């Protein structure tokens, strides 16, 4: 029985482990001291919390990890691939432990291994008092010579000076102060110029940003590497200093950052500790400096359980349905006050619905760490070298879709590394860089989100697909098949099952499963490939699963819905014309297009007179549907069908304004 407090710890721990994983993957590429410290801090926090809530084993494991990273941070042990591997493994064990799936043996092994790492280092450390952050601090002199009329440009010089002070510890030396500087500012008439000594951990870009509105002639930023720079050509072009003036400035810097000068006069720019106060201000800039592209969001955020969120969404969905019901009831309402109230209710409901659905939107980036780990382990296992680039992962998708996308994406990526990207020496033979390139891109376009997986490997081997297809009896060996057909074959059930099941490929996940999953999200897959150049797989997904624009059609007594984005054309025709021939076909756009009469399909009696034909174009396939007539358009909340019902030709259901239910037609299935 887990009580509420422990539940909170579990939530917190999950978040910490997520951050930890990300930091570790970052560290592989770039051993920044601040990342090492982050890792240390995460371990430390996890250990403390675990201890407090009685998770002894988690505490033990975190403690060992903390020790290892303490050594790394102090420079006693180098951070190598072995340690990162080991740490990632430990993270997996921790994850299991948090979910309650503990394996005593695994735990013992990894603790043992970690202990041996710190033992060879020779020194054990007591966890020190919480260290806040570690960054590299540098010394600069900024020469500021604003034009006398700088105020006339609408620049707030006072604010500028404050911004400089926010960079870090600084001291201003005012030159040519014939009139007190304060008075110059007050009179908005500057005759002085400034020599500003500053120590800061901010990047040069951030420093330059402070002077965004200044003309190049008005400022100069000089980085100081040592005391000799006070007499450098650059410095002397601004001001020539006497020996005692240089000594004066050295003292100033010494006050700004004690220990800045080493014995021989060079400036020490190794990691230094910063006080917490300056840290909170720097926070946003730190995000810019590190490689992690975590988008800083304005405004604070809170965490909400998905259960609460789903409840909210359910209520909003009901509200949307009710709104159309009400609208229907009030159909003939004449009273203007009531009509106006109804309109307002409409606006509010739709506004609420839109807001609620954006809450469910989550950036694709949350899958990033999982994918990175997958790529890492797959490439290692298969002896491939892979460079993983992402772009546009801040693109957002409905939360449930992201969950559903995880497995297909992982499979596509596995395939890309397994079959696409060649071994390093093979690549070199082909004059390609040793490292294969794997790109994951995402972007919005219109109502859809596009996700692309690109690799610069082999390209799809059509010969192999063809021979495999013939082998399995799915293809006729004398027939010619074009690339599109072969790709479709590749994604059909039964094709991929006999693949060698490596630890990587897993069971039962083939391209057919991927296609099925994507289709069930009302998405599409497109494959583009070039021999020896690579492959691009593009997924096109609707922004949200739940809201659908539909056409309401009538067949006998019932209404059905057809997704509007599939409808290409509608027209009316007489029954005799349509059914004149035996073949159920119409000529559309100069082509013969099959049609299905819903009355016929459902076994309802024929209609004489006029019927309506709706031409549907889905996935480049055209099929027409014949109905009694079109009632109108409806934007509705889509509910998927219960799994127990045979899927056949319906892809879901919805509730109409009058409270009746309508099934959503999946036109392509009508033909089967």
């Amino acid at each position, binding site marked *: 029985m887990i009580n509420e407090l422990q539940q909170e710890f579990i939530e917190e721990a999950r978040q910490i482990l997520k951050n930890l994983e990300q930091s570790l993957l970052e560290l592989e590429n770039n051993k920044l001291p601040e990342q090492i410290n982050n890792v240390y801090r995460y371990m430390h926090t996890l250990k403390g919390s675990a201890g407090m809530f009685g998770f002894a084993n988690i505490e033990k494991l975190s403690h060992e990890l903390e020790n290892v990273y303490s050594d790394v941070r102090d420079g006693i042990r180098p951070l190598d691939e072995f340690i990162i591997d080991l740490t990632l493994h430990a993270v997996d064990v921790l994850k299991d432990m948090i979910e309650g799936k503990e394996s005593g043996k695994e735990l013992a092994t990894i603790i043992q291994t970690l202990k041996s790492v710190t033992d060879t280092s020779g020194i054990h450390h007591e966890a020190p008092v919480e260290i806040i952050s570690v960054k590299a601090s540098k010394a600069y002199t900024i020469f500021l010579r604003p034009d006398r*009329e700088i105020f*006339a*440009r*609408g620049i707030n010089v006072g*604010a500028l000076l404050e911004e400089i002070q926010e960079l870090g510890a600084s001291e201003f030396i005012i030159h040519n102060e014939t009139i007190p500087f304060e008075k110059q500012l007050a009179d908005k008439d500057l005759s002085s110029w400034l020599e500003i000594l500053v120590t800061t951990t901010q990047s040069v870009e951030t420093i330059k940003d402070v002077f*965004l*509105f200044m003309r190049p002639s008005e400022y100069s930023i000089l980085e100081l590497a040592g005391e000799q720079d006070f007499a450098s050509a650059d410095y002397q072009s601004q001001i020539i200093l006497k020996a005692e003036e240089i000594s004066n400035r050295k003292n100033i810097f010494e006050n700004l950052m004690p220990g800045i000068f080493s014995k021989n006069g060079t400036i020490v720019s190794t990691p230094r500790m910063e006080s917490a106060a300056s840290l909170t201000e720097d926070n946003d800039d730190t995000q810019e400096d590190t490689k992690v592209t975590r988008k800083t969001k304005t405004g604070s955020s809170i965490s909400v359980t998905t259960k609460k969120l789903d409840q909210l969404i359910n209520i909003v969905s009901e509200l949307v349905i009710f709104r159309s019901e009400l609208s229907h009831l009030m159909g003939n309402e004449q009273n203007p006050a009531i009509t106006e109230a109804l309109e307002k209710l409409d606006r509010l409901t739709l506004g609420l619905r839109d807001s609620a659905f954006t809450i469910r939107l989550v950036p694709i980036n949350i899958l990033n760490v999982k994918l990175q780990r997958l790529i890492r382990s797959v490439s290692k296992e298969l002896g491939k070298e892979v460079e993983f680039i992402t772009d546009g992962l801040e693109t957002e998708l409905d939360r449930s879709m992201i969950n559903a996308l995880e497995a297909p994406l992982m499979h596509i990526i596995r395939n890309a590394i397994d079959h696409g990207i060649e071994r390093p020496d093979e690549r070199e033979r082909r004059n390609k860089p040793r490292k294969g390139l794997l790109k994951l891109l995402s972007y919005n376009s219109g109502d859809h989100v596009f996700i692309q997986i690109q690799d610069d490997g082999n390209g799809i081997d059509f010969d192999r697909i063809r021979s495999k297809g013939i082998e399995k009896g799915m293809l006729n060996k004398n027939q010619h098949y074009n690339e599109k057909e072969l790709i479709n074959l590749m994604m059909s059930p039964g094709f991929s099952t006999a693949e060698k099941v490596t630890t990587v490929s897993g069971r039962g996940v083939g391209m057919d499963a991927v296609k099925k999953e994507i289709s069930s999200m009302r998405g599409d897959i497109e494959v583009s490939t070039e021999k020896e150049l690579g492959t691009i797989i593009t997924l096109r997904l609707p922004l949200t699963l739940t809201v659908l624009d539909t056409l309401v059609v009538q067949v006998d007594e019932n209404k059905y819905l057809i997704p509007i984005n599939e409808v290409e054309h509608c027209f009316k025709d007489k029954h005799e014309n349509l059914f004149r021939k035996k073949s159920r076909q119409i000529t559309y756009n100069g082509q013969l297009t099959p049609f299905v009469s819903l009355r016929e399909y459902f076994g309802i009696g024929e209609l004489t007179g006029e019927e309506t034909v709706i031409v549907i174009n889905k996935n480049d396939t055209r099929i027409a549907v014949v109905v009694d007539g079109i009632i109108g358009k409806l934007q509705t909340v889509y509910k998927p069908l219960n799994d127990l019902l045979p899927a056949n030709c319906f892809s879901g259901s919805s509730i109409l304004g009058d409270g009746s239910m309508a099934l959503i037609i999946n036109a392509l299935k009508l033909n089967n």
Partner: protein
Amino acid sequence: MKRIVVAEDFNVSRKIIVSTLAKEGFIVMEAADGTEALQLFDGRPVDLLITDFNMPNMDGAELIHKVRTLSDYKYMPILLLTTEVRQEKIQHAIDGNITAHIKKPFDTAEFLKVVKKALK
């Protein structure tokens, strides 16, 4: 809450600028040319002027010149929207009066960064 005047004759551009700023919580007053813009000043508190260069009736250069003569707005930040094709001579004359140029078309994030800095 900061008050911004936006002067731009091209409707679409103006709407985009206005909504971008409004979303950030600024109070935005809009004008389609210099004459309209000038009327928005008239002793009202204005924290920033964003103006296009080419506008009918009264163009950006004249607007800026006139605004600067009014004592209330002598030191108010002014941002000028410019295109690649710069009319060197004319713009040079007003350079001493404006805080910064913003090149059109602009990147929203960059734009907001400059606006927020100008308002400090």
